[in-house]
């Protein structure tokens, strides 16, 4: 059985038919066509599927699609503004924080959730915010540094 669900995705209204009991990850990728969201485990263990729901980080694989009716979803596809990359995307590139790239969109969204709430995080804040996201390539350090760079770059631009 299919259920209609309407929500906002990166600022645009979206209406989709979701299989009853479907998770948000599958609906975003297979029904809506937003392939920036990645699935690694469908068990909540890897964090690759992290999206923001009303500004809070959530695992899309463990989110019942029907439960997001009327909510606002942000994914990595909505990070850049036109040709301009988000400061986090620039910092990830400059710090070589992506190798295979599989974890990257989840890392970016977990980091965005942190910086939106706390623009001046400590290293511990960053480690805690990324605690649910696994990376098998980078050893985490370039990712942590990229998030700290993005935060301090943002502060420099605002100064």
């Amino acid at each position, binding site marked *: 059985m299919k259920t209609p669900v309407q929500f906002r995705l990166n600022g645009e209204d979206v209406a989709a038919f979701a299989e*009853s*009991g479907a998770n948000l990850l599958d609906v975003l990728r297979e029904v809506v066509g937003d392939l920036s969201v990645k699935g690694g485990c469908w068990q*909540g263990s890897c964090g690759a599927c992290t999206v923001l729901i009303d500004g809070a980080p959530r695992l899309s694989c*463990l989110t019942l699609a029907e439960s997001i009716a009327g909510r606002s979803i942000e994914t990595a596809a909505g990070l850049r503004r036109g040709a301009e990359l988000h400061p986090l995307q620039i910092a990830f590139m400059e710090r070589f924080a992506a190798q295979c790239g599989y974890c990257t969109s989840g890392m970016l969204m*977990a980091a965005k959730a942190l910086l939106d709430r706390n623009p001046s995080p400590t290293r511990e804040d960053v480690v805690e915010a990324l605690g649910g996201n696994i990376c098998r390539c980078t050893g985490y350090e370039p990712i942590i540094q990229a998030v700290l760079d993005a935060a301090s770059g943002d502060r420099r631009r605002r100064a």
Partner: protein
Amino acid sequence: MSVNVKTFARLADAASALANERGARFMGGGTVLMRLINDTNPAVETVVRSTDQSLLHLAVSSGRIELGSGVTMAAVLAERDLAFLHAAARAVGGPAIREAATVGGNLFARTPYGDFATALLALDATVTLAVGLGQRELPLEEFLDRRERGTSLVSAVAFKRPAAEAFRFLKVTRVHPRGVSVLSIAAQLPLASGRITGARIAFGGMNRTPVRAKAAERALEGRALDAAGIAPALAVAAEGTAPADDAIASAWWRREILPVHLRRLLIGPGQA
């Protein structure tokens, strides 16, 4: 296979669907239940949800604290008046899990999960069930004892605010910053004239469900919180526990480290 999802505005309607539908499970935040659904586990045929705002009720007064079963770990962490519970809420998964994971769901989470339920057990919490059009309140300990058998909807938990500094929580994990528990310990240690009166200690990860450490509680009665005072409690700490041998730790290891961590929780690592 797709599951049947039924969403109810009224809690009482959700409770009756849960009691009457075959293979029905209530969904809180879904951090455990969605895993089963993603795996097309045949045990889940129907998902019952409720949008009843009473599930999000959070009332903090100087005496009693009430948490609706739909209150998330993130909501607990956002509440300054619940600071004594923050270590327990922060013990549940990473930030994205905590945004979804509910208090109600934690009462059902199987070992090695259930860190927040362990804290609630040491707080002598009661559980309110939605039954028909009414409610029924029972001690958390009794609820945990028979939780696998029931199809009741938990609407809330409640407990008395512990005295300042009297509540402590510790989680032992091998993976940092976020890993599942080898075990967890919660303790409520009221002091009168420097002596413990009516201690409540609960262990997570040491049995099928979180359990009270009654032998250790008795051994602490009237004692001071120092090395000599707590020694009898440490000696009996593992009494009545039946931990699992699993991929996280062996039962033997859990029993060995339990008194070490109980000591740390009670008086700190280096204190005499």
